[in-house]
């Protein structure tokens, strides 16, 4: 004979589950129990963490073509800021935010660059961290994603294929544009076009928001143009602006026109590189890791975000 069990009806829990939660990236409503946004596939953990902190996190768009070094730069940035004893430094929020750092540091320390980021938005690394710096009394909550360069290229060709990208571009408070200094110096500007398209898209979305009166002011967002792999190009760390004027005039011009508050930086992670056979195909690998100019662009951007 079945026995009866007493189960308390915790209606407030049901009510909590029924209340929707807004995705931090695309700002669409989702079920509270969802692990990923049903529209943009961004992790809902970001929204849950944002709810738990007083300050609303600021979204940073990190743009760049495939192979420009986004994963290495962002992973190294997080590792440096976490290891830092003084200021600036960051505190990662949630285990999700440590994955990018873990992947990058593990690969670099064993003599490899991190693997190319997958197209699938579910495999992108997202970071939510608290950034402490000297120039701001209060720490800043920031969120950014390591998006695949190929996904950026696809999104500029086919609108709406990656809603997360559109969400990042529409809602970001600051922009980091990464460009491969080695390619620029060699005169290879093919990859510039992806970045130029993304900057155009950023401007269009801003105009749309102005038209819909969701925003009242013109473009005030800061933009950091970061020349990566600067170790291979003399002068791109010492005087990145001059390097950009000489080798990336179009990209620099576009940044100047659209973003009055911009700054050019140079950075490098590897001191020297070589190729290593992996299952018969040569892979580009670092010979030693000597990070330079990694924190400066991010620090400037967060300070300028206001």
């Amino acid at each position, binding site marked *: 004979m079945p026995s009866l069990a007493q189960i308390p009806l915790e209606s407030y829990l049901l009510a909590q589950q029924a209340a929707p939660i807004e995705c931090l990236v695309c700002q669409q409503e989702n079920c509270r129990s969802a692990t990923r946004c049903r529209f943009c596939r961004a992790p809902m953990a970001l929204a849950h963490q944002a709810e738990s902190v007083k300050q609303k996190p600021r979204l940073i768009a990190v743009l760049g073509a495939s192979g420009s070094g986004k994963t290495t730069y962002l992973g190294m940035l997080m590792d440096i800021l976490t*290891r830092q*004893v*003084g200021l600036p430094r960051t505190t990662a929020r949630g285990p999700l935010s440590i994955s990018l750092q873990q992947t990058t540091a593990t690969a*670099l*320390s064993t003599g490899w660059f991190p693997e190319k980021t997958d197209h699938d938005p579910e495999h992108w690394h997202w970071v939510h961290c608290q950034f402490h710096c000297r120039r701001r009394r209060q720490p800043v909550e920031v969120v950014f994603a390591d998006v695949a360069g190929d996904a950026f290229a696809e999104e500029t060709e086919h609108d709406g294929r990656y809603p997360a990208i559109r969400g990042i571009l529409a809602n970001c408070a600051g922009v980091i544009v990464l460009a491969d200094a080695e390619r620029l110096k060699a005169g290879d500007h093919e990859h510039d076009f992806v970045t130029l398209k993304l900057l155009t898209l950023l401007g269009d979305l801003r105009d749309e928001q102005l038209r819909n009166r969701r925003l009242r002011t013109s473009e005030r967002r800061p933009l950091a143009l970061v020349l990566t792999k600067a170790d291979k190009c003399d002068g791109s760390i010492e005087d990145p602006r001059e390097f950009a004027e000489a080798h990336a005039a179009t990209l620099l011009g576009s940044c100047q026109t659209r973003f009055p508050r911009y700054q050019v930086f140079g950075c490098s992670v590897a*001191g*020297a590189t*070589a*190729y*290593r*056979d*992996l299952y018969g195909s*040569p892979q580009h*690998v670092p*010979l*030693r*890791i*000597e*990070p*330079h100019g990694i924190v400066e662009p991010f620090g400037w951007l967060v300070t300028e975000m206001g």
Partner: protein
Amino acid sequence: MARIREFLRIGEPVSTWVRRTTGGVALAVFAAGLWWHNSSLLGVGAVVLAAFLFLGWRETADRPAEPRAHSTERRPRSRPDSETEARPLPPRWVGHPELVDELPDSADALVDEMLKTGRYALLLRPEMNRHLDREHIIRAVRHLDEAMALVPAGRVLLGPLAEQASSSSGAFDAEQKLLERFMHRIETLYLDRYPVTNLEFRQFVHAGGYEKLEYWDEEALPALLDFVDQTDQPGPRYWVEGLYHGGDERRPVVGVSWYEASAYARWAGKRLPTDAEWTKAGAWPVESAPGRIAQRRYPWGESFDIRRANLWGSHRDGPVDVDEYPDGESVGGVHQLVGNVWEWSGSPLLASAEPTLHVPETYKSVRGGAFDTYFENHATCHYQSGEHPLARRHNIGFRLALPMATLEVAEEEDAQGDGVEESTVTANAEEAFAASI
């Protein structure tokens, strides 16, 4: 006559234009007397002109014979020994009159000069030391002992196997084939206790090392004009006007290519250490049985300690003096093998790199990590990186090695030698010195 001499300052250095003006005025007075038939002017002009010509002749006769090139510009050196004075200059200095002033004038002075500039290794070469007396050799050996540490002969593991040998507990057994490939034997040598400093490298620059082609590898000659500092003076990349920044004299010299390091080594009478020699000095391998070897991961032991080396985690933002981090010395007393600056090795990178790695054949091996090396496992005694030999990086310096075999010959010959007269010593030593480089 004495008053006239005094008035005209004859006997003292008189500038040419004063002499010419006086002669010209005297000639003009004499000519005016002739023109106007004025006997007074004629007489005065003739007397002054005659006196001037006579005294000028006397002055020329009194002056000692000197080479024309140095007669007026350089003050003659006081040389007590007339034999030394008469001796011809070594051929390499004849073409460099700026160095003649610094030419040592006795065996003592020569030895002092060589020791002061850190070129004691040249004094200990057999072709040089057979001309020196025992005291000089003892002084040179003392300098050698202070500046260099002995690395005993033996076998050392390089490449991918070396890291396994250090991380395994106790000792490491490997297959015979692999051992044959990566096990190297080195002979006894001396290795610099500290990396070469800015101050030491300045001696090379000051001695005209960048202008003397005999120090340089043939393939580096086309690039020699590019080896300049921030102000286009010959010297390391980050120097200004041929000089390092103030306060950097004890810091390791950086911004030098592999060729500049090699040229300095030739000038100092040493050479760059090979990968095996460098690793042997740091990892201090112990071979308990043939093929069974244990090597240290860091010069001080197995685990990393940020207090013993200047890496990224030390937050020093640049190279520090070579005698900092004394706790990081190796068993043999070699300092800063790990951290501060990478060190050029004499070996090509491919010689001991993993077989799967593809790098240009010209790449040279660099070892030890630097102040901006991020990961500790990239700054072990076994980790190897590489760089193009023409690269002049902000974090690559070097230290030098001196094979013991060179000195053994010297010692044997010294034991057979006996006292030689000083003048002969000096003459032979200078010639040998010139020939030895």
